[in-house]
């Protein structure tokens, strides 16, 4: 057994036909060429930079180095292994660098926001509002409690509206499969493309201008739920689609009604996926700024009541404060941005952790329930 495995590795052969064949992607000679050309390109550019070459600055250096690196490694592989391999090599290097180019900003953003935001981050940031903050106050005075509480309330209300609606819509699309399912799917796709500022304008026109309401936290959460609904629906639909048809058929064959099949079989099976969908949706909605500019009004003082009076929200708080002339306000804005980013990251990690579990995962709560029923 061990012998065949080793041989398989050597000949790049995969035993089973159904498995996708994967070829050993990196050979030692490739690595040598890569390192060699990186170093020689660096040396060459070091020599010629700022004299013959057009660019300047650190960014320019990297760009020129990269171009030289591509050219040198391509030439080297072509000399060693021919034209076809050289093309393959070039494509591989380009794909690798393209992918890293997509990742690098994330790292830079996270580090930058942490670096800017941690100065004014103290426990009081979560308990104080801006009531006593004046133009000359230090950045460690006052906090963003009013914005954090506003955001939690607005996103909470938006979830209360959008999550049940989104999941029932997904049930309609995937379980009921009525006559409207096809056009509905198109409209949900279209709705997920509604620009966030348009959602804000809509609530401003319909809720504030037409119905005569004020700018409140509730208006903000209505705007957020317009954005939240299609996200939940789409991801929930994908999750429901993953439930094996055999389970539904078994339930129906045992005499279960459609409602029982959905409520007792389909939804519990996909529960972890649905929770992930909701949390990811919350993580997206929590950072929305544009619709809130138009709807919540913004405030510097804590307002517990989302139904009346202007409220603040964390992204809107950051957006306003970053444009202040005072350094202290800008520092507070960065702290707000840091808190926002941490919230998003935490939600994301929770969603991933839950989503990684299969439907047969039995958590602490579930085991307790099963034990009570005497099943486990």
């Amino acid at each position, binding site marked *: 057994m061990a012998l065949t495995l080793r041989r398989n590795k050597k000949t790049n052969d995969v035993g089973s036909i159904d498995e*996708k*064949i994967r*070829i050993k*992607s990196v050979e030692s000679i490739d690595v040598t060429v890569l390192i060699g050309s990186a170093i020689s390109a660096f040396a060459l550019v070091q020599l010629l930079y700022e004299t013959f070459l057009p660019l300047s600055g650190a*960014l*320019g250096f990297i760009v020129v180095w990269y171009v030289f690196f591509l050219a040198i490694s391509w030439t080297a592989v072509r000399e060693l292994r021919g034209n076809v391999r050289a*093309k*393959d090599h070039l*494509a*591989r290097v380009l*794909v*690798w660098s*393209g*992918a890293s*180019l*997509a*990742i690098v*900003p*994330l790292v*830079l*953003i996270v580090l930058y926001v942490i670096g800017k935001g941690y100065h004014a981050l103290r426990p009081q940031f979560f308990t104080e509002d801006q009531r006593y903050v004046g133009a000359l106050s230090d950045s460690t005075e006052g906090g963003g409690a009013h914005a954090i509480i506003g955001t939690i309330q607005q996103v909470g209300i938006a979830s209360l509206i959008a999550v049940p609606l989104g999941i*029932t*819509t997904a049930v*309609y699309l995937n379980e*009921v499969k009525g006559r*409207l*399912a096809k056009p509905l799917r*198109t*409209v*949900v*796709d279209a709705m997920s*493309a*509604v620009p*966030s*500022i*348009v959602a804000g*304008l*809509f609530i401003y*026109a*319909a809720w504030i201008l037409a119905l005569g309401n004020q700018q409140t936290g509730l208006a903000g959460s209505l705007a957020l739920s317009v954005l939240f609904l299609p996200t939940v*629906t789409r991801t929930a639909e994908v999750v429901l689609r993953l439930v094996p*048809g055999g389970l539904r058929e078994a339930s*129906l*064959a045992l005499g279960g009604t*459609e*409602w029982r099949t*959905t409520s007792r079989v389909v939804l519990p099976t996909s529960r972890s996926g649905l929770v992930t969908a909701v949390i990811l949706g919350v*993580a*997206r909605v929590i*950072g*929305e700024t*544009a619709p809130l500019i*138009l709807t919540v009004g913004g405030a510097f003082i804590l307002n517990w009541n989302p139904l009346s009076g202007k409220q603040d929200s964390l*992204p809107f708080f950051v*957006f306003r404060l970053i444009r202040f002339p005072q350094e202290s306000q800008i520092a507070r804005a*960065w702290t707000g941005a840091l808190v*926002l*980013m941490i919230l*998003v990251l935490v939600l*994301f990690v929770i969603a991933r952790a839950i989503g990684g579990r299969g439907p047969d995962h039995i958590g602490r709560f579930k085991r307790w329930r099963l034990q009570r029923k005497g099943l486990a």
Partner: protein
Amino acid sequence: MTSTTRENAVNHVDEPRVTPVVRRSKVDRAYRAIATMSGSIVFVVMALIGGFLLYRGIDALRISGWGFITESQWAPDMGGAFGIAAVLPYTVSIALVALFLAVPISVATALFITEYAPRRLRRFLTATIDLLAAVPSLIYGLWGLFYLQPRLITLSKWLADNLGFIPFFKVNEDFGTSLGVFPSSTFVAGVIVSLMVIPICTSVMREVFGQAPPGEREGAMALGGTRWGVVRDVVLPFGRGGIIGGSMLGLGRALGETIAVTLIISPSFDAKWSILEQGSNSIAALIALKFSESTETGISALMAAGLALFVITLLVNTAASSVVNRSRSGSATEI
């Protein structure tokens, strides 16, 4: 077979010879009615969005008439002329700059995930791309404004100095080419927006590339093709619908991006070819910036602009999802 419902029979390969008669209980009928109702709410909301924007914007449209499309100034509150003739081209050019950068990077990232990456890295990368999509646009905007822009304008300057003969890269001579000309431009805004577009494009392309038929893939390898050969002759042709559709979905997102653009640009109302020079605009940023200082006519005019943005993104997105869905259902993979 006959005991299953009609809906479940559809899932089977064999068609039932006799269509089973389904008698639903009251509970089931109520369940279907409730699900249908909540599904219809989506239709109602979409209709209301269009309806309310039109209803509120119609006053402004009556005042401006066709000028709404041809006029480039925006002064509805002083009784002046207003229109989207400058704002719309700026919106489109920011989106195009974003796509120009985002599409190659997304194709590379999607190819990396499906073809090149080791299995472990693949899961990690998929998660990272999802995370990129979850980072608020406000944070992209802040980072772009404070970190990226000062570094990016050296590139702008280089482009203007060396490729200035291309109309897009030309900068007004009066200013010379000091670095002060380059911040808050269409280019900078486009670069930031491209970061937000990349995850959207990548996830669509990744899904479609992953569906390239394994038979053809292995056939190409068996014929002695390199990995690039497989990508070029199998994966990319089969994934063409995904590339086009994903790019268009990204375009829809780029057109509607608000906060990051609002933070970066300094509003300009004279359409110009140069993408490097200071001053740009977008419909969404216009609404965000002008909203608080507008009176009744101004709000109405912003509603009309919002309607225009809504209609444009709707069209782009519907076209995009039809392209993606077609390539998903496999019709584009016929040889």
